[in-house]
Structures are given as structure tokens and as C-alpha cells.
């Protein structure tokens, strides 16, 4: 595929790696805040090929992983109602709520459907006028414009039987929260490329300056990630801390103005709880009052949700980069992709799942053996 294959070229990857190896003189800890980048890093083995001195900490970049337990439980409740067709991206189906997940709700008779796009859910609403269609609107800033347009469309077309359960999260407040934590080890950031395609780069210079960290907007293919690492390491070696764009083919400084305008119209900023981390102020979006009629939380009063996280789950520490997945006692034993305790083991770019699926070979032998499923 054009714009993909060229950016996977092994020879060019080698050159980027050589340059990183030649540049680095001291240990550096970098964080990527995008689940897609985590997935790419682990899946291609990039972390194995980087110099030992360059450590990649996998940040809370997986919206699936950080969707609050309470929201998942609300989704489960709504999806269980007989009049509801509950539509969701595939990622969310296996995320454990308190005691069950959307897959199980389906098994018990709930009409839960996977869609590729939120517009598919709107279409289902138009085709099923006698049912209530609810779409699970999660994601970072990349997914927010599609979800916003869908609600905007619903209102414009006067579609009454559609609503959205919204739980959007924003990257810059997350970076701020991570850097403000006393145990923070992060010295440089790979910023999420497609988030910046939408939002532009304007929110980052203030963070780079305040915390004195380089922030490099990075893409997703192996060459993109290596270039993001290369530029970040270069800045660190020189004592610089600026915002840089290593994904220029898809990121402009101002982002996408039309998308940002729609976000202004449809959403408003709110405090948001991040599963495993806690409340980060102003870190989320919810539907603006004008669109309250399309807010599923408003339409379906979901009472008496009592959430309970498994005590053994340490996904919060993993999400903040304080714990490596295989250092958790439950890893590979109590907690596997088949029997996940927390969301980081469910989503394929949650750090725990990524380590389990791709990295068991590198782990101490006993841990790997425990973790290998027997058929």
C-alpha cells in the first residue's frame, strides 16, 4: 500500500537504527502515548533493535484501556435492555466490566453489534426505527471528529432513535498528569501522530517548555517510529526540549480546522477518570448541552452502578510506565488475554496484552512457561 510499504523498508530502518546507536551516549527513557504506536513497536520488534540505553515506556495511549470502569458498566447495562441495539468498535467487546463484558451480554441475548464506523450505527438506527440504537463513542482526539459528525448528522436528519455513550479522552492533559507525577521517569515524548493530524501541534510547546521535555510528533510505520525516536534522542543528547514534527506528510501545525470546528460545536471539555490512573482534570470530552438529547447517559438513566476492579490488577501502574507487565504477579497466570483482569490485557495494544502475545520469548523462562496456554 502506498505510504505504508515504503515506510517499512528494512534497509532504511537499518540506517535509522545505526544513527540512533551512533548518537546515544547516555540512558534515556522515552514514552509513546498512542496504543497504535505501542502495537507497532512491539509487533515489529523495534524495542528489541534499539540500543539498550534507549528505553521505551508504553504510556496510557489505548482508549480502550483507559475507559473508566463505570462507563463500561453503564454500557453493559444499556446493552442488556431488550429495546436497544448497542453498536461498538470491536476493541470494546472484550473489555471486562464489573463481572462481565459486552460479549457476554450478547451471549445472554443482548443485541450487540460491531461496526467499523459510527456512521454505520446511524444507518442501523435509520433501518430500525422501532429500536433504540446506542453507539459507544470512545477514543482519543482522532476518533472524536467521526463521533462528533455522527451526532451532528443525527440531529440534522432528525433521527430520534439514536444516542451516543461518550467517553472521549485527550492526550495533552495526560502528558501533563504523567509529567507531574513524582515518580515520573519520562524524559521525552513521542506524540500521537493521528491525534495531531486532527488537533495540530499547538497544545505541545507549553508542555515541552514547562517540563523541559522534547515532544516529537511521530507516525506509526517502523520508519516513522524510528525517526521519532531518533529525533527525540538527538534533542536529549543536545539538551534541547522543543516540539518537532516527524510525521509531516500527515500532520500540519494547525491540524484539521474543519474537524476542530465540529469538535467545538459538539463537545465540551470535562474532567475524566482514566481507568487505572484516576481523575485527570479537563482530560475528556462530553456532549455539549445543545446535543444533550443524543447523550445516552441522559436518555437511559443508569442507576445503581457499583464498580469493582479486581484487587490484583495493577494496570494503572503499567499505564503510567511504573511497572512492566511481566513484573505484575498476576501476569500470565490469573491475568491472560483469555481471562483479563484489566483492560491493558484485553486490547492488543494494551501493554500487558502486547507483552503477552509478542514478548514471552524474552521473559524469564518460568514466567514464559506459566503463560503459554496448553490446548
Amino acid at each position, binding site marked *: 500500500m502506498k505510504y505504508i510499504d515504503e515506510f517499512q523498508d528494512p534497509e532504511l530502518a537499518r*540506517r535509522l537504527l545505526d544513527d540512533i546507536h551512533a548518537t546515544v551516549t547516555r540512558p534515556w527513557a522515552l514514552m509513546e502515548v498512542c496504543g497504535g504506536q505501542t502495537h507497532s513497536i512491539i509487533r515489529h520488534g523495534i524495542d528489541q533493535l534499539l540500543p539498550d540505553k534507549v528505553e521505551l515506556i508504553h504510556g496510557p495511549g489505548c482508549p480502550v484501556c483507559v475507559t473508566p470502569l463505570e462507563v463500561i458498566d453503564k454500557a453493559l447495562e444499556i446493552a442488556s435492555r431488550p429495546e436497544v441495539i448497542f453498536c461498538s468498535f470491536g476493541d470494546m467487546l472484550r473489555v471486562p466490566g464489573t463481572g462481565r463484558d459486552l460479549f457476554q451480554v450478547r451471549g445472554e441475548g443482548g443485541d450487540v453489534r460491531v461496526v467499523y464506523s459510527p456512521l454505520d450505527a446511524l444507518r442501523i438506527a435509520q433501518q430500525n426505527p422501532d429500536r433504540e440504537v446506542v453507539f459507544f463513542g470512545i477514543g482519543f482526539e*482522532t476518533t472524536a471528529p467521526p463521533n462528533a459528525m455522527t451526532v451532528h448528522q443525527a440531529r440534522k436528519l432528525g433521527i430520534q432513535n439514536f444516542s451516543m455513550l461518550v467517553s472521549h479522552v485527550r492526550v495533552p492533559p495526560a502528558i501533563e498528569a504523567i509529567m507531574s507525577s513524582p515518580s515520573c521517569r519520562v524524559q521525552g515524548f513521542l506524540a500521537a501522530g493521528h491525534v495531531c493530524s486532527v488537533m495540530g*501541534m499547538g497544545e505541545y510547546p507549553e508542555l515541552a517548555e514547562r517540563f523541559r521535555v522534547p515532544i516529537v510528533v511521530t507516525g506509526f510505520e517502523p520508519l516513522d517510529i524510528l525517526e521519532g525516536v531518533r529525533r527525540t534522542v538527538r534533542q536529549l543528547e543536545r539538551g534541547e526540549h522543543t516540539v*518537532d514534527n516527524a510525521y509531516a506528510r500527515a500532520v500540519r501545525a494547525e491540524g484539521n480546522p*474543519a474537524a476542530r470546528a465540529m469538535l467545538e460545536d459538539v463537545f465540551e471539555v470535562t474532567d475524566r477518570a482514566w481507568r487505572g490512573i484516576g481523575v485527570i482534570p479537563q482530560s475528556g470530552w462530553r456532549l455539549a448541552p445543545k446535543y444533550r438529547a443524543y447523550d445516552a447517559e441522559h436518555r437511559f438513566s443508569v442507576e445503581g452502578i457499583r464498580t469493582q476492579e479486581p484487587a490484583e490488577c495493577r494496570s494503572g501502574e503499567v499505564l503510567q510506565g511504573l511497572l512492566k507487565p511481566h513484573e505484575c504477579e498476576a501476569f500470565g497466570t490469573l491475568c491472560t488475554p483469555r481471562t483479563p483482569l484489566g483492560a491493558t490485557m484485553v486490547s492488543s495494544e494494551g501493554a500487558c496484552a502486547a507483552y503477552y502475545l509478542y514478548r514471552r520469548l524474552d521473559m524469564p523462562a518460568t514466567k514464559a512457561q506459566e503463560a503459554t496456554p496448553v490446548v
Partner: protein
Amino acid sequence: MCLAVPGRVLDIEERDGTRMATVDFGGVVKEVCLEYLPDLRVGEYAIVHVGFALQRLDEESARQTLELFAELGLLQEEFGDPWEAAAADAAGSEPVEEVHNQ
């Protein structure tokens, strides 16, 4: 959060008052909403996330990036850092401590 894939616009039409496109992803064809890229034309590329085109892909920028990767290591000894050289060309002077676009 960002599984967005590059695709090429084959044709554009209005549907329900919405700008939609048929986009080709290397042999896979899908309907995509183009409302966020009102200036995108047939034949151009965009990255597409959950059925929406979110940003135009800049061919020239991609080409330049790949070229610079290819020159890594080769130019180093003779001419110094190719990125700094390119940035200096673009800025007309030494690189400035602000947002770089390369």
C-alpha cells in the same frame, strides 16, 4: 487510538447533504466521509479513520522524508546533518528553537 490508513480518492458525491467519497486502499474499496476535507480532490490521498478522511497526505513531504532517510549516514561525514542542512535551507538561516516542520 489511531488506526488510520492512507487511501486514494476515486470519486466524490453528495449523499444526504454529506460529502462522501469512494476511496481505494490498494485494491480494497470503501465509502468514506469527506466532510472534514472539503478541498480534497479525486486522485489525492488522505488518511482514513473509522470511515472518515482526517488529513490530506502530502506526497512531496513523504518523498522528502524517505530521501532524507536514504541519505542518513552517507552525507554525515561530508556535509554534516542533512536535517539541519535542510532546515537551514528552508529557514534561510540557522535552525530556530521553535516548531520544526520537515
